[in-house]
């Protein structure tokens, strides 16, 4: 067995361990949402730490896997900048989560909005949107017959109109809520950015279906499912925050953990495909 095989084996074990932990943690939070009485004796601090780790670990894994993909792609490869941006997004979100987690669970500071973590989340969103647009561009111009010239325009226009209408309807109550300006800006920014991400995501869904049955299809189905679940999680977070329904927090933890894990699994699948 070579050093490279050993390293690959260790990477595989770490990746499986993170996905297994995320699966257990998300299931735990789902059970907590459905039957909170089962968790009466469990210290909230323990559950918070489990949730924090459940979000941070897949983000770090996804970032490492995306960086590995970047390293495997030769200089000049047109998809390389897109993978760099994807790695940057996951890294920025991991940093944001780490800042929130350390200030809340280690230093015991009260939650603040906006916080330093929010700066990293917003930078992360910019990179995510740029990555998604870049992936659309390189896929369309890759040389594979992925779409007719009209299809991407039709999907982009329909997705923009539908998401704009849905965004106005869904985000209206969040925008109208009375709270300090900075807090309101952060509360509305995430779901709005999610709706923006969903436009290139819709295009990528169309393009991904053209690779059905191949490993690329698996990679992109995982990554795009992650985008969608995270968008849902952000909208739910904004709603639950507005309504003050703390008992649904475990459900939120589940959606964030599942979203990050799906994306990380997609990046891991791409890395594995290129390594084999």
């Amino acid at each position, binding site marked *: 067995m070579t050093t490279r095989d050993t390293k690959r084996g260790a990477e595989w074990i770490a990746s499986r361990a993170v996905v297994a932990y995320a699966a257990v943690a998300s299931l735990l939070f789902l059970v907590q949402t459905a039957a909170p009485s089962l968790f009466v004796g469990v210290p909230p601090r323990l559950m918070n730490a489990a949730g924090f780790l459940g979000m941070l670990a897949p983000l770090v894994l996804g970032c490492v896997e995306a960086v590995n993909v970047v390293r495997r792609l030769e200089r000049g490869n047109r998809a390389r900048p897109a993978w760099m941006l994807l790695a940057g997004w996951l890294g920025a979100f991991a940093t944001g989560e780490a800042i929130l987690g350390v200030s809340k669970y280690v230093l015991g500071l009260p939650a603040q909005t906006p916080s330093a973590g929010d700066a990293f989340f917003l930078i992360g969103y910019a990179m995510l949107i740029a990555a998604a647009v870049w992936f659309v561009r390189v896929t369309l111009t*890759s*040389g*594979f017959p992925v779409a007719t010239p009209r299809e991407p325009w039709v999907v982009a226009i329909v997705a923009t109109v539908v998401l704009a209408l849905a965004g106005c309807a869904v985000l209206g109550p969040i925008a109208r809520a009375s709270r300090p300006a900075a807090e309101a800006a952060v509360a509305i920014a995430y779901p709005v950015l999610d709706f923006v991400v969903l436009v290139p995501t819709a295009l990528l869904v169309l393009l991904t279906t053209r*690779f059905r049955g191949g*490993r*690329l299809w698996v990679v992109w189905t995982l990554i795009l499912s992650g985008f969608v679940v995270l968008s849902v999680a952000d909208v739910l977070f904004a709603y639950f925050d507005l309504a003050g329904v703390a008992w649904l927090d475990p459900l939120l933890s589940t959606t964030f953990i599942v979203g990050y894990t799906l994306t990380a699994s997609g990046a891991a699948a791409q890395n594995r495909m*290129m390594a084999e």
Partner: protein
Amino acid sequence: VNHDRVVEAAVRTLAPYVGRNMAASAVRMHLAKLGLTGAPLTEAHVEQLLAELAPALCVFVGRAKADDVLAGVREALRNDRRNSP
């Protein structure tokens, strides 16, 4: 080389990565672009086809992996020729 055998070998090798439908569409599209439809193909034609497919595959799997996959097409054609009566 028999045209259909080239198509079949290329599709079989590309399918695990891009799916069977995309592999078949891509191979047929590039053969048509090269004006190589139906007639038997020479080794040079096969290389032309692989050279057309390479940049597309590179975008998704990188140069090293794309070279491996396309070498698989050559290998499959060699095996086909060896096994053909």
